[in-house]
């Protein structure tokens, strides 16, 4: 078993994908990090202190992990969902009773979304109480606060999509709050968000586009900057 495996990892095909040998020496372990697109967000060596669970509680990493779960389950849900007043609720019922594992998929997306709001908030608390916002990391804290706002907005725009009573009135309460912004600005923002004065067809399409495209892409760009700066400032 061992020999064929060795031979495979030495083959040209394997080497064309992974440019390093098995991570058996410190040299190949370092190469495993900096020759890998996904791992190169990390340095090749990290402080022993920052690997300890009680230092970060893994809250930032798990927030990113929840985002991955949400993108994957969200993409699958998009296959069965049409953002129109006529069809949205029916599609939810189909997910519940017709689509294989549809209910499970929706549950996973829903609970991961709630968990992400809480997780990002907890991550912010951890960073505050360990003083990890101090120079030179001030601006990364600011990006983090913006990412928290984006997380809440992502969750909130998704809240309308099932088009049930919970969704409809949840969004109505929220957009009514926006209307109280002074100087007529609130009316305009709310009109822009809903594509009208009431929560209807236009609002559903707008929230769908925000939820599935605009906000996730914006959040991903910010996350890229966030992680890059963590690394530049000497983090993991």
């Amino acid at each position, binding site marked *: 078993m061992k020999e064929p495996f060795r031979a495979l990892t030495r083959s040209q095909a394997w080497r064309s994908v992974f440019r390093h040998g098995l*991570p058996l020496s*410190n040299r190949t372990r*370092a190469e*495993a*990090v900096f020759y890998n697109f996904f*791992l190169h967000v*990390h*340095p*090749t*060596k*990290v*402080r022993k*202190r920052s*690997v300890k669970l009680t230092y970060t509680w893994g809250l930032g990493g*798990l927030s990113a*992990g*929840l985002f991955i*779960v949400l993108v994957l389950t969200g993409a699958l849900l998009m296959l069965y969902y049409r953002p129109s*007043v006529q069809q949205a609720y029916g599609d939810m*019922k189909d997910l*519940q009773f017709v689509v294989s594992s549809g*209910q499970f998929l929706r*549950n*996973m997306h*829903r*609970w991961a979304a*709630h968990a992400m*709001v809480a997780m990002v908030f907890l991550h*912010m*608390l951890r960073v*505050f*109480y360990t*003083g990890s*916002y*101090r*120079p030179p990391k*001030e601006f990364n*804290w600011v990006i983090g*606060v913006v990412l928290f706002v984006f997380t809440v907005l992502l*969750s*909130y725009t998704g*809240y309308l999509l*099932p*088009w*049930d*009573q*919970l*969704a*409809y*009135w*949840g969004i109505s*309460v*929220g957009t*009514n*709050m926006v209307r*109280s*912004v*002074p100087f007529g600005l*609130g009316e305009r923002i709310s009109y822009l968000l809903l594509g009208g004065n009431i929560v209807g067809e236009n609002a559903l399409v707008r929230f769908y586009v925000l939820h599935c495209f605009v906000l996730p892409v914006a959040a991903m760009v910010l996350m890229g900057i966030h992680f890059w700066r963590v690394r530049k400032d000497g983090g*993991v």
Partner: protein
Amino acid sequence: MNADFRLEKNSDARAVPKRVAFVKGRTSARVRKEEEEMVMTVPHLVVREVIAFMLMVIVLALLSLFFNAPLEWIANPEHTPNPAKAPWYFLGLQELLHYFPPIVAGVVLPSLAVVALIVIPYFRVNVKRENLWDEDRRRKLILVLSVAGVLSIVLLVYNVYAMLIPTVIVAAIMVTPAFLRRSRGALGWLGSRPLSWWIMTWFVIMVIVLTAIGTLFRGPEWSWTWPWKEIY
């Protein structure tokens, strides 16, 4: 020998702050950083990350197997549920809406909170963690008590007991170390917390209390309702 200075051999910069360094030959003059113990990212960090992610997915999957996401009747603009509630993370704000005019609860307070969070790192922070009450005790005490007092009166006028009680408790705990000076134990620890720590802790307690009340204790007409009572 009566010298104005005494030569001490020591490599600790804190114990002997003024120092004469003899730079030999090609060595550069700089303080050597304390070396931290390092580990390889593969496997030490990556393995932990993978395990944490897998555990999280398992927990999510179990949760999703046993608890279904809510789905109510189809949206009906003619029929307003009582109470109409936003998602849980906005219920703290909705609870504020119960006490203050919409412009304050829906716009001013949340904007203030976000701006306050953003500017945190741009204030000088208590890096050395000196005791908050060591210097200027009187002035600080007057300042803290008057800010807490004005805030409490505003909250009392608007009948916001949900915010008043935690505010008074936090302020009381905050000033206790000013009267009972201790360098150790819980009081010593509380005394060495910087001002930003107190503001953040107060803010987090507010968020948790208001969100919990809005989520669990509000029924028809936003009246106080115990969580075990059905509201719909």
